[in-house]
């Protein structure tokens, strides 16, 4: 019975964690040995349905990967009907969020994150990244390179959206012109 518990819970849990990490873009370049090292460092957190992961404008220290469950990202808005909260995106297993906090100094969260079902998250924070850089610099550099890539892509996406919105504003302004 003990062996079965060990295999079903501990070993499987560890295997799931390694698989989730390997599937994430930040850790995809790491060797199996480095992945095991990272797995010992990251934090597994359980959230109940409806529980807040973080609030907008809170100081954040790291990112979360969804190991199991669903997370709703919302932002406070003066124009939204739903109690000043605007739905942004629904994230599912394998997605990640909050990665900007890994490189910011006391940066504030730009949105709210809330568990939409019972959810299991893998937390990866700035002290964890610094620990990896101090003890396994090669692995740290690989993670940082991938992180830069993700942040660059997010910035390009944001710039694209802003351009699109600007064009939309100009078009609307043009439309209202007498």
């Amino acid at each position: 019975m003990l062996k079965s518990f060990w295999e079903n819970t501990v070993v499987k849990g560890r295997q799931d964690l390694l698989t989730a990490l390997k599937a994430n873009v930040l850790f995809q370049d790491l060797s199996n040995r480095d992945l095991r090292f990272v797995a010992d460092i990251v934090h597994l957190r359980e959230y109940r349905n409806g529980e807040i992961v973080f609030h907008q404008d809170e100081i954040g220290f790291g990112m979360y990967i969804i190991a199991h469950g669903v997370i709703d990202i919302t932002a406070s808005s003066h124009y939204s009907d739903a109690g000043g909260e605007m739905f942004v995106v629904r994230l599912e297993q394998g997605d990640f969020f909050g990665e900007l906090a890994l490189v910011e100094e006391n940066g504030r969260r730009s949105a709210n994150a809330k568990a939409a079902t019972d959810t299991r998250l893998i937390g990866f924070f700035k002290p964890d990244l610094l620990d990896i850089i101090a003890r396994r610099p090669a692995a740290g550099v690989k993670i940082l390179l991938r992180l830069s890539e993700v942040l660059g892509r997010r910035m390009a996406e944001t710039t694209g959206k802003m351009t699109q919105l600007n064009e939309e504003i100009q078009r609307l302004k043009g439309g209202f012109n007498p």
Partner: protein
Amino acid sequence: MTPAHGLRRERLVRIFTVILILAVCTLVILQVEDMLLSVILAFVINCLLAPFVNALERLGLSRTTAVGCIYLAVITVMGLGLWGLAPEIGRQAAAIQTEFPRYLKELHHLIGDLEKLPKTILAKTYKASTPADSPRILPALYNRLFQDLPGLMSSLLSAMLLAPLLAFFMLMDGRTAIKKLIAIVPNNLFETALHLQYQISAQISGFVRARLLESAIVGLIVLIGLLLVGQPYPFFLALFAGLTNLVPYVGPIIGAAPALLLGLINNSPGMDLLLVMAIYALAQVLDAALVVPLVVAKIVNLHAVIVIIVIIIGAQMGGILGMIISVPVASMIKLTGITIYRHLTGFRA
């Protein structure tokens, strides 16, 4: 029970569990004999060796192998050092033991002479009175020192045996233990707790390393200087100067006192006394000009007045040990306070 009630209950249980674990650990450290000293020593060893263990890990060694290699290297270096210096240290210790009663007698005369000084200068305006039991104070102190010595040595010995063992486990499993404790913290406080723990750990480790480096440099300068001028007992005086230098502000003065008293007792020429004092002053100047700005000041930014008050409180509560650990404890309290304040005010903007 509604989900919100369930969540609130779970958070309370988690916070209570964390507080309970910390309280039990504190109680054990404070109540078990010699445990406080052992834990502090182990923490110091952990802070000193962690960078070397990390360096070996960077070369690809596992944590266990890295810790094992560092322990082996430290034992070898200490063994060789003791083997090389043992005859000289033994000779100096034997000389101190032989000369100690004479020094006490001379010190007694010296204090007597000092007491007579205000009487001669201020005879007409100030009536100074010497306590009737003053001739008995020094022998009483001497006896008490030798009565307390076996207990002190036994505490020190058990701490010296226990501390390396505790430090070994701190180096090996310290992170895992802290991670497991942080895992109990409720989700809404988890990020703050992790960040706070990281900041306190980095600040205190840096402080301990900086203070020990500072003390080692001061001790080394004093040792070289005393060896050059031919002052007796250079190893013990340098060791004392280095150890007392751990106590900010008052430590350096206490550290220089034995050399000055030895000079006065031995009726050394004024020039020799000045030279010895110049060595201690040089060590402090180099410390203040080079070491402190580079390593210490950046780490703990407590105002000098606060530091003095904290040292006095530390001395009242825990004697010499209290004085040494008071500043890091105060900086830890300050950091915790700032982070909690920021959490309450700015964290949830």
